[in-house]
C-alpha cells in the first residue's frame, strides 16, 4: 500500500513526524510499520508533549526501589517486602462505552502491577462526571456514572481485588469528558520482582493469555485526540474485558514466575503486541523477532496490521530461558490458558515481524521507544481560565446557614458515595482495615506488621483557578489524609488529566501543575514513581478543568484504626490547625460558592506547606500517644461539612465559634492544614500541638443527637444528626434516580 498524505493524517502523524520515520528507517515505512509508529508515537504511549516537563518531578527517595519507566513504581517497606503501585486513566473509552471502558481500565492497571510479580491487593478510583441534574446532558451523565461504576465493580469484584476508596466529583466540564483514573497497588518479596527487560539472545518470546481479536485497534490513538461528533462511532475501539480470564492470568503468571524460567515479562496494554515487544527489547538493548502466524487468534483473516495494533485484553508477553519453555507451558496449561512461543530474542536490536513468511515490519526498537518525538510545546502564556479573579460586587452573605449546610451535605460532590462503593467488594482478601468513606484507605499486609495507607485526591476547581497552587493543595490533602490515619507518606503516583496541549494556555496549565506537584512532592518527601498523562480531554474545543490526580501511599504499623466518626459523648472537640484563613477572594473556590451560589471566582485556599507538615507531625504524635478517639481532616465544604461528616445518628456536637469573624468564612472556608478531632486527654493534646507549634483550639464537645454550631451570642446551625445523616446518605441515589429533566 502506498503511503499517502491522507493516510499519514489518518494515523495522526504530522508531516515532520513522518519525515522522522523515513529518516530513522532510511526508507518509506510499510503500511504495517506506519500503524506501529502511529501508536508508539501517540501522545498516550510516547508522552511527547509532557516528557520534558515530567523530568522535573522528584523520583528518588529512601524507599524507592523502582522509579518511573517500568510498568509500575516500586517501594521497599522493610522486611524484604516491596509494594508496586501506579495510576492509569481510561477516560476516552469510558465516555464512549462506560461499562467496558472502566472495566478494562481496571484490568489494564492490574496487569501493570502483577507483571512486576506483585499480587494486587487494593484498587482505588478517581472519577469525574458531568452533573446529574440541571443540565441537558444530565440523563446521559447518569448513564455514564452507572456504567462506569458497574464496570469497575464487574472487573474488580470478579478478579478478587478490593476497591478500597477513591473520589467522585461532578462538574459541567466533565460532561463530555468524564475522567476514570484507576489506582492499583500490589505486594511481593523484593527478590521476586520482575522487570520488562528482555535479554539473552536466542531466548524464546512467549505469548500467554487471551487470544488476539480485532478489538481496541488504535485505542491509544483515540486516547490522543479530541472528541468530535464522530467519536461515538469509535465504540469498536474500546476493548472488552474478561476479569475471570485476568484472574487466571494473574495466578498463572505468579506461579510461572516461581519456576525461575522467566527472564522478563510485560503486559500487552495500549498498542498491545507492538508496545510490549519493542519496549521489552528496547529496555534490554536487544531485538525481538515475532512470527504472527503463531499468535493465538480468535478471529480469522486478521492482517499483520490488525494483530499488531489490537488491544485485546488479558494478554502478556514473556521472555523465558531457552530450554525451559515447558516449565512455563505447564503452568499455563494448568490454568487453561494459551501459552505459545511466537518469537525469539535477537542481537540486532530490531523489532521484526513476520506474517505468512513475509517480513511485514522491521524497525529498530529504540526508534519506536526512545526516538519518539519530544515537544517543547509553547506555554509562555497565562494558564487558561475564564473565572474572574475578583469576588462578586456583593460579598456573599447567608440568611440561613443551616439550610445552606443541608444543601451542601446533600450535594453531589459532598454527599455519601455509599451507592457507589457498596457495589465494590472492598473487603475481599481480608486486609481492609479502613475502607471507603474515610480519609485514607488502609490495607494491612498479613505477612508483616505493616499497613499501607493510600489516598487519591485532585481538585479541578482549585487547579482551574491556579494550576500550581491547586496541584500543591492536592499533594497536601493526600498527605494530610495519610497523616490522619497515622501514616507517613513515602511515595506518589500521578495522573495528569488535561485538555489539548497544542493550545499554549492549556500547555501552561500542565506545566504549572507539574511544577506544583514537583515542589510539593519534594517537600512532603513523596517522590513520584510513575503515573500517567491523559491529554486531549476536550470535546468540540471545550476542555476540562486541569485535573491532576495524586495517589500517595504511606506506611504505618498495623493497628486498630481511628474512626472519623465521633465515638464518645462529652469528649472535647479540637480543631488542629485552627480556624484557618479565608477571605472573599479565596472563598470563590469553595463548595459553598459552587453549590449555593453557582459561581467560581478568585483563588484557591492559601497553602503554607511548612504549617501543613507541622499539622501532620502533630496528629501522628497524638495518634501515637493514644489520645485520639476520632479524627477527620477538613477539605471540601470546610468546617461545617466536616462536622456533619463526623456525626453519627447518635452523636453530634456543640461547637462555639469565635466572635468577630465572618461566619460564612469560618463555617465554609476551605483553608487546608486542619484536622477535626476528639480526644480523651485534652491537656496532652494541647501539649503535643504546642510542641509542634500548631494551633489547636478547643471548639466544643460531643453531644447526643444534635449538631449545634454558633457563637456565644447566636445559634447558627441546629440540626438533628439523624436529619443530617439522611440528607447525606439519600442524596446520591436520589440524584441518580431522578426523572428525565
Amino acid at each position, binding site marked *: 500500500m502506498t503511503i499517502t498524505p491522507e493516510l499519514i493524517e489518518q494515523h495522526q502523524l504530522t508531516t515532520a513526524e513522518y519525515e522522522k520515520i523515513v529518516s530513522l528507517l532510511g526508507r518509506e515505512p510499510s503500511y504495517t510499520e506506519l500503524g506501529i509508529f502511529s501508536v508508539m508515537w501517540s501522545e498516550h504511549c510516547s508522552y511527547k508533549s509532557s516528557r520534558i516537563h515530567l523530568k522535573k518531578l522528584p523520583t528518588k527517595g529512601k524507599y524507592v526501589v523502582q522509579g518511573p519507566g517500568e510498568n509500575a513504581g516500586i517501594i521497599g517497606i522493610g522486611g524484604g517486602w516491596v509494594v508496586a503501585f501506579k495510576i492509569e486513566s481510561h477516560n476516552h473509552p469510558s465516555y464512549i462505552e462506560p461499562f467496558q471502558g472502566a472495566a478494562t481500565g481496571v484490568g489494564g492497571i492490574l496487569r501493570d502491577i502483577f507483571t512486576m510479580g506483585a499480587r494486587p491487593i487494593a484498587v482505588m478510583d478517581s472519577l469525574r462526571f458531568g452533573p446529574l441534574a440541571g443540565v441537558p446532558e444530565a440523563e446521559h451523565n447518569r448513564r455514564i456514572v452507572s456504567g462506569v461504576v*458497574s464496570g469497575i*465493580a464487574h472487573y474488580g*469484584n*470478579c*478478579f*478478587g481485588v478490593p476497591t478500597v476508596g477513591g473520589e467522585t466529583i461532578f462538574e459541567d466540564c466533565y460532561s463530555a469528558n468524564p475522567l476514570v483514573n484507576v489506582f492499583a497497588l500490589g505486594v511481593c518479596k523484593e527478590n521476586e520482582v520482575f522487570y520488562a527487560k528482555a535479554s539473552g539472545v536466542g531466548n524464546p518470546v512467549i505469548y500467554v493469555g487471551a487470544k488476539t481479536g480485532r478489538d481496541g485497534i488504535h485505542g491509544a490513538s483515540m486516547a490522543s485526540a479530541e472528541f468530535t461528533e464522530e467519536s461515538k462511532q469509535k465504540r469498536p475501539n474500546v476493548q472488552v474485558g*474478561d*476479569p*475471570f*480470564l485476568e*484472574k*487466571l492470568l494473574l495466578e498463572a503468571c505468579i506461579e510461572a514466575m516461581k519456576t525461575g524460567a522467566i527472564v522478563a515479562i510485560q503486559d500487552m496494554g495500549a498498542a498491545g503486541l507492538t508496545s510490549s515487544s519493542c519496549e521489552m527489547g528496547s529496555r534490554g538493548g536487544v531485538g525481538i523477532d515475532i512470527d504472527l502466524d503463531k499468535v493465538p487468534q480468535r478471529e480469522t483473516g486478521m492482517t499483520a496490521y490488525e494483530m499488531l495494533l489490537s488491544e485485546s485484553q488479558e494478554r502478556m508477553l514473556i521472555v523465558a530461558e531457552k530450554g525451559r519453555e515447558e516449565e512455563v507451558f505447564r503452568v499455563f496449561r494448568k*490454568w*487453561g490458558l494459551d501459552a505459545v512461543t511466537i518469537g525469539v530474542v535477537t542481537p540486532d536490536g530490531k523489532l521484526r515481524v513476520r506474517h505468512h513468511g513475509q517480513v511485514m515490519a522491521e524497525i529498530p526498537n529504540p526508534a519506536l521507544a526512545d526516538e519518539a518525538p519530544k515537544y517543547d510545546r509553547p506555554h509562555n502564556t497565562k494558564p487558561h481560565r475564564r473565572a474572574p479573579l475578583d469576588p462578586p460586587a456583593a460579598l456573599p452573605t447567608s440568611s440561613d446557614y443551616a439550610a445552606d449546610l443541608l444543601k451542601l451535605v446533600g450535594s453531589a460532590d459532598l454527599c455519601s458515595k455509599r451507592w457507589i*462503593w*457498596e*457495589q*465494590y*467488594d*472492598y*473487603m*475481599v*482478601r*481480608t486486609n*481492609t*482495615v479502613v475502607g471507603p468513606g474515610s480519609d485514607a484507605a488502609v490495607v*494491612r499486609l*498479613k505477612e508483616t506488621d505493616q499497613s499501607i495507607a493510600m489516598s487519591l485526591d485532585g481538585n479541578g476547581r482549585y487547579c482551574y483557578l491556579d494550576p500550581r497552587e491547586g496541584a500543591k493543595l492536592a499533594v497536601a490533602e493526600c498527605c494530610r489524609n495519610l497523616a490522619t490515619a497515622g501514616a507517613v507518606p513515602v511515595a506518589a503516583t500521578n495522573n495528569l488529566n488535561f485538555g489539548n496541549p497544542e493550545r499554549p494556555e492549556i500547555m501552561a496549565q500542565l506545566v504549572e501543575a507539574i511544577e506544583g506537584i514537583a515542589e510539593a512532592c519534594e517537600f512532603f518527601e513523596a517522590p513520584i514513581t510513575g503515573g500517567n498523562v491523559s491529554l486531549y480531554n476536550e470535546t468540540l474545543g471545550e476542555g476540562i478543568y486541569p485535573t491532576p490526580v495524586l495517589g500517595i501511599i504511606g506506611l504505618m504499623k*498495623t493497628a*486498630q484504626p481511628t474512626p472519623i466518626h465521633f465515638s464518645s459523648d462529652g469528649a472535647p472537640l479540637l480543631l488542629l490547625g485552627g480556624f484557618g484563613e479565608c477571605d472573599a477572594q479565596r472563598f470563590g473556590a469553595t463548595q459553598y460558592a459552587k453549590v449555593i451560589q453557582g459561581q467560581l471566582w478568585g483563588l484557591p485556599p492559601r497553602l503554607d506547606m511548612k504549617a501543613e507538615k507541622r499539622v501532620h507531625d502533630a496528629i501522628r504524635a497524638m495518634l501515637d500517644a493514644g489520645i485520639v478517639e476520632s479524627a477527620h481532616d477538613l477539605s471540601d465544604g470546610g468546617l461545617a461539612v466536616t462536622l456533619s461528616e463526623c456525626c453519627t445518628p447518635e452523636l453530634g456536637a456543640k461547637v462555639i465559634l469565635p466572635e468577630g469573624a465572618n461566619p460564612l468564612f469560618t463555617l465554609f472556608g476551605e483553608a487546608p492544614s486542619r484536622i477535626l478531632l476528639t480526644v480523651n486527654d485534652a491537656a496532652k493534646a494541647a501539649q503535643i500541638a504546642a510542641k509542634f507549634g500548631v494551633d489547636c483550639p478547643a471548639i466544643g464537645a460531643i453531644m447526643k443527637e444534635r449538631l449545634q454550631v454558633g457563637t456565644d451570642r447566636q445559634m447558627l446551625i441546629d440540626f438533628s444528626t439523624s436529619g443530617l445523616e439522611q440528607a447525606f446518605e439519600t442524596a446520591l441515589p436520589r440524584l441518580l434516580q431522578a426523572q428525565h429533566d
Partner: protein
Amino acid sequence: MKAGVIVFPGSNCDHDAWYAVNENLHGRAEFIWHDSPKLGDVDAVILPGGFSYGDYLRCGAIARFSPVMQAVKKFAADGGLVLGICNGFQILVEAGLLPGALLRNQELKFICREVKLRTETTASPFTSKLTKSQILRIPIAHGEGQYFADERTLDQLEADDRVAFRYLENPNGSARDIAGILNEGRNVLGMMPHPERACDPLMGSTDGLGIFESILNAVPALAK
C-alpha cells in the same frame, strides 16, 4: 486431619477462608484444586466465595460439573461437613446439595456491606457454639444472593428447622429473609454472608468465629 478449601478457577475468597481457619482459629486447612477427583484425608470441606469459572451461564452452574464436586457430593452423603460461602452456596444449590436457587439481588446491583444476621438454629455442627437468636455482624458481598425457593420448600425448611440464619434487614430480597440453610442431614450449610471476613478484630467484627468454632468443636481433629 484438616479442612479442605476447594479452589476453583475464579475462586477469590479461598485464601481468606484458609487464613481464618489457620491463623484466626488456629485450626488446619489446605487447598484442594478443582480437578482433583479425591478430597484426601479432610474432615470438613469449605467451598469459598468468588466467581468460579467466571460464573458464566449462571453462578455455580459450571462449577458443579468439576471433578472435585463428585468427591464433595460423596463426602456430604457420607455425613462429612460441607460449608459453602457465597459462591460456595451458589455451587451447593446448583449441585443439588441444597434446595432452592440464588437469583440476582432485588436491586440488580452488587452489594458489599456488613449486615446483621439472626441465628435461627443451634442444632447443627455449624452453629452449636452460637446461641439461639444470637445476632451476628457479618459482611455480604454478592450480586446474586437473593434466595428463592417455592413455598412448599420454604415451609419444609422451616418445619425442619433448617434455616440457619436470617437477615435482620433483608439486603437482597431473599425469600423469608433467608441468609443460610442446612441440608436434611444438617451436615451441609450454605450461606451468602462471609463468616471468614469476620474473624479478625482488625476487620471490624469477629462474629464469624462462632461458626468456625462450631465446626472445630464438631470435628476436634481439625484443631491443631
